């Protein structure tokens, strides 16, 4: 069950996470908090979260998979083909 998490810790350790099989780092979400600390968002199952924590990195749960899917569903249901109305002719 992959949840949406953020992973924070020293840059080298965050960079080394690519070998965890069930950790799916979202490519374009990494950023530096300061010179030595990075944060990245990822989808992770329990095993992946444990493996990340075992490397001394901080895992924060952003959304469970169920919440993430529910939110995505809401966004998709709201898709609109109606243009914005800026008040008609003035």
């Amino acid at each position, binding site marked *: 069950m992959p949840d949406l998490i953020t992973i924070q810790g020293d840059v080298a350790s965050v*960079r080394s996470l690519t070998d965890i099989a069930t950790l799916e780092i979202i490519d*374009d979400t*990494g950023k530096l908090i300061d010179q030595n600390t990075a944060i990245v968002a990822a989808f992770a199952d329990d095993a992946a979260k444990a493996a990340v924590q075992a490397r001394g990195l901080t895992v924060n749960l952003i959304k469970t998979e169920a919440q993430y899917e529910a939110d995505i569903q809401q*966004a998709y249901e*709201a898709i609109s083909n109606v*243009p914005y109305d*800026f008040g008609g*002719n003035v």
Partner: protein
Amino acid sequence: MPYPSTSDAIEASLQGLVTTFPSLCTRTAFPNTTNSVGMMPRTYSFLKIGKGSGAARPAMLAVAGLHAREWAPPDAAVTFAGNLLTAYTGGAPFTIPAFTDSAGTIHGPVVTPAGTVKAIIEHMDLYLVPIANPDGRAFCMAAPANKMWRKNRAPLPPPFNPALIGVDLNRNFDIAWDFDTYYSAAAAADPNFSAHTSKDPIRDVYIGSSVFSVNETKNIKWLLDNFPITYFIDLHSFTGMVMHPWGIETLQTSDAAKNFHNAAFDHLRDGKLGAAYEEFFPNNAPSKLLDRHNALVTAMHDNIKDATGADYTIGTSADLYPCTGTSDDYAFSRQFLAPGAPAMYAFSVEFGDASEGFQPTPAQYPKVEREVHAALLAFVRYVGIWQGLVPSVVAPSSPSSKICFIATAAFGSADHPDVRFLRSWRDALKERRSTRNAIRLLEAAYSQVSPSIAQYLSEHEQARRVVRMYLLTPLISMLRRLFGGIAHNAN
């Protein structure tokens, strides 16, 4: 609220703006249609906002939606245009409404005075590309299974392979595009780079078969080639960052020889592996490129924080991760390849956070929308200040200055000691739990009326003298007597 809008709806919204404000904006189709697998070629447009003409008008370009899955910035770019034009037409300020965060703290409202709105519309040209990857967005929105689609939908060079579709548009611009030539082998193989830029067509971050290999990036280049744009901003989501170049390398300001077009450094550049090579970023007068880039990212950060409380990270694009072929680096780099070219300022912003993600829910969207509007307002306002078109006396110079519009105008400077005292007094009360909400409510009411008063004061010395003598000086004297030390004893 139409969010999230389809690509068709965004195009129709642009036409709606032109219909509603025919003397203030135009819609122009790009010269190249899209060319996508399984889709009809699509004609799509950019919007130009501005009243009047003239060679001296500063021209700004804002681009959104290069990445298909980033749903919020294109909608917010459209509503920014609509709100700006509506404010101008009504002679009103552009007000970003107050926002209550999850902790119950009220942020904003953030008010851009009517005089500034007027200056933007009448003396500047804003080019807006709200959806730079319309077919990618259409594919992404077609089914939740496509929710993570990032690239465009272009077919790759023959032989056709249905599994290999699309190019990461924000890796396809002509800046260090062939990274194997640009970087050392070690830098090109560095996971911190290779995770975000790739020549493998199956990857989300595929750079394309050649520079400007797809029509969507050709269209952005065409805009930059054919219009006198010297300010550029690219709107993305979702990591909460306000950035300026370089993305290709860390930067330095002293060694002009270390630059992206100096072939002597090919295969030697080290990305973020070390400091042996760092990209030159000039900061000499009069352009003061680096200082001004830093000032503007700070202004955008501050305006965003004022609007929603979100504390975005400030930095260079390489702070996010080093990468090549990006739009902001490309726009910025052009000035160094054309002798005599005017200075170019370029930025990119990653809006939102992980909880909002690439596709904020309709309930989450208003926060991200406010942040996009706040950044764009700071962007255009600062351009106006630099060009001498927007009176800096009414342009907030810090996130805490808006309650001091009138005092700033009356004393002529945001740095006048009495203005600083008022700011610190107000900020101290905002820090106290017992007075925080009352001050914010007072601030919200005050900021509705103060910009227009400040605008009037900035133009009338006699009125400034009266306000100083009979209102502010007695008020400040009283506050100093009663609460003189409060700013130093907050919390």
